[in-house]
C-alpha cells in the first residue's frame, strides 16, 4: 500500500480547511453584526418562506439567470483544457486566454450597461 501518492490531497484538504477557518474566524471577530427581520428571513431575496409555489417571479430573476447561464456554462470549455494543459503547451494557453479575454469584454459590457444592478 503506497500512501505517499495521497499526500498532495492531504495537503490540499489541510490548506482548504485552514483558509476556510481563517476567513470565517476573521468575519466572526472583526465583522459588525446587526440583526433585523429581512436579514434573518430564510430567503434573503424577499420571498415568504411558507407560501404556495405557484406565485409569479419577478422578471428580473430571469435576467440574473441569463447572465449566470452564460458565464457558468462557457467555463465548460475551460474544463478539458484545465485537465490537460501541461501537455497542450503555450498555444492552447494563448487560445484559452483569448477566449477569457472575449468573456471579459462581455462582462465589462454588461457591467457598464447596468445589467448587474437590481434596480
Amino acid at each position, binding site marked *: 500500500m503506497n500512501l505517499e501518492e495521497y499526500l498532495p490531497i492531504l495537503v490540499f484538504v489541510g490548506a482548504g480547511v485552514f483558509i476556510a477557518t481563517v476567513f470565517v474566524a476573521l468575519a466572526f471577530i472583526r465583522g459588525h453584526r446587526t440583526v433585523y427581520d429581512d436579514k434573518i428571513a430564510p430567503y434573503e431575496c424577499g420571498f415568504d418562506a411558507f407560501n404556495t409555489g405557484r406565485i409569479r417571479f419577478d*422578471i428580473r430573476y430571469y435576467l440574473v439567470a*441569463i*447572465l449566470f447561464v*452564460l458565464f457558468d456554462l462557457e467555463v465548460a470549455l475551460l474544463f478539458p483544457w484545465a485537465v490537460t494543459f501541461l501537455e497542450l503547451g503555450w498555444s492552447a494557453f494563448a487560445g484559452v486566454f483569448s477566449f477569457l479575454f472575449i468573456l471579459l469584454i462581455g462582462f465589462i459590457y454588461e457591467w457598464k450597461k447596468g445589467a448587474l444592478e437590481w434596480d
Partner: protein
Amino acid sequence: MIDPFHINILSILVFVIAAMGILISMNNLIKVFLCIELMFLAVSINFIAYAYAAHNIDGHVFTVFLLTVAAAESAVGLGILVFYFRRRSVISVADATVLKG
C-alpha cells in the same frame, strides 16, 4: 451488446418527446425553450455514442461545443422572452398573432 444503433433509437425517442413537447406546450414559452434544449441534448447523445463506438475524439469535442453554444443560444432566447413579456405581458406562443396578413 449495446451498439450505436440502440443509442440512436434512444436519442430519436428523446428528440420526438421534445418535438411533441413543443407542440403541446404552445401556451408557455419557457416550456418551448426547455424542449429545444432537450433536442440539443438528444443530438449530443448521438454524437457521444458514435464517438465512443468509433474511438474518435471529434464527437466528444463537438458535444462540449454544442453544450456551450446551446447555453449562449438559450441566454439569447431568455432575453427575447423577457422582452416579449415586457411588451405583451403574456408568455404564450399561441397569443403571438399580431403579425399576420
